[in-house]
């Protein structure tokens, strides 16, 4: 039943080993929802979330680079997916493009994860029926009786 997925933390490690670039985080979003994410310093989450919302509002954007005092964020849009690399702020802009070689791998892994999730979706989209006050009271009575049984048994 499990979904096997790539570990974005390993991609961070690979980038450091293969390119010598220190990456603070790698994420993939589907629209505004996270699909894959490495460990990420908490103070960077806000800037990443804001950036993704911004990118998704403007259809014509394919790449965005944002530099702040503590990070350089490089975002690449691929249809509804957005790949985000976060590096140290002092990295040379040209070096960011070396990261493009990892985009396909991240996109592929994200699409596989989403595809597998869709396969199990029919099992989870069960929606609750209309329930009446009597239904709720009956459930409460039932679970109270179960609780009483446990108490009587001394469990």
């Amino acid at each position: 039943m499990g979904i096997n997925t790539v570990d974005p933390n390993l991609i961070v490690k690979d980038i450091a080993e293969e390119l010598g670039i220190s990456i603070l985080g790698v994420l993939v979003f589907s629209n505004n929802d996270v699909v894959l994410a490495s460990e990420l310093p908490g103070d960077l989450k806000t800037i990443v979330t804001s950036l993704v919302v911004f990118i998704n509002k403007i259809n014509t954007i394919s790449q965005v680079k944002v530099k702040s005092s503590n990070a350089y964020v490089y975002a690449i849009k691929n249809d509804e997916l957005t790949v985000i690399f976060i590096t140290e702020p002092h990295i040379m802009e040209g070096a960011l493009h070396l990261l493009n070689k990892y985009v396909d791998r991240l996109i592929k892994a994200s699409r596989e994860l989403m595809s597998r999730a869709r396969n199990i979706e029919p099992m989870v989209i069960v929606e609750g029926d209309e329930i009446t006050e009597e239904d709720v009271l009956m459930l409460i009575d039932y679970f109270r009786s179960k609780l009483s049984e446990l108490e009587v048994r001394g469990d």
Partner: protein
Amino acid sequence: MFKLVIAGPYGAGKTTFVKTLSEVVPIETDAPTVGKTTTVAFDYGKIRVNDIVVHLFGVPGQERFSFLWRIVARGMHAYIFMVDSSSLESVKAAVFMYNYFIDTFPNTPHIIAANKQDIAKVSINDIRTILGVKPEVKIAPLIAVNKKMVLETLITLLSEVHRLMYGSTLSPISKGDSGTGT
């Protein structure tokens, strides 16, 4: 059919809660990570009560699976948001997911379950403060392997469902806080 969702961050005890409550062998979707397992899709269990089937869905806690949260939670009647009281870091890590549920399902009845009370390090008051839980939302103490406490938590939630849907208060069962921040 009554749909109940168990939400909360990684390691809060959602899978255990579903296992303790379910009358059938629950579907578990834990996948191996490095040296441990974690829920990556959802846990599922059910309880039949006369003509009503209570479906229990536990959702994965990691933010990277947040796209599943909305799918699993669709059409739910209520949810229990579970936190690990034994870890301040874990409670802090729950803020994002709790805000997501509050923002996405603002009108759905819910309570907070403060799990791992046997080894708790974070008080219920602190959990309320850290998560920003509104005063009217109850926080129930829980040990998810203890069936009695699991039933009390469920009754507390159902009482909240009744209160919010039908506007009347039932006699309290849970030892959870009164919702006044005490």
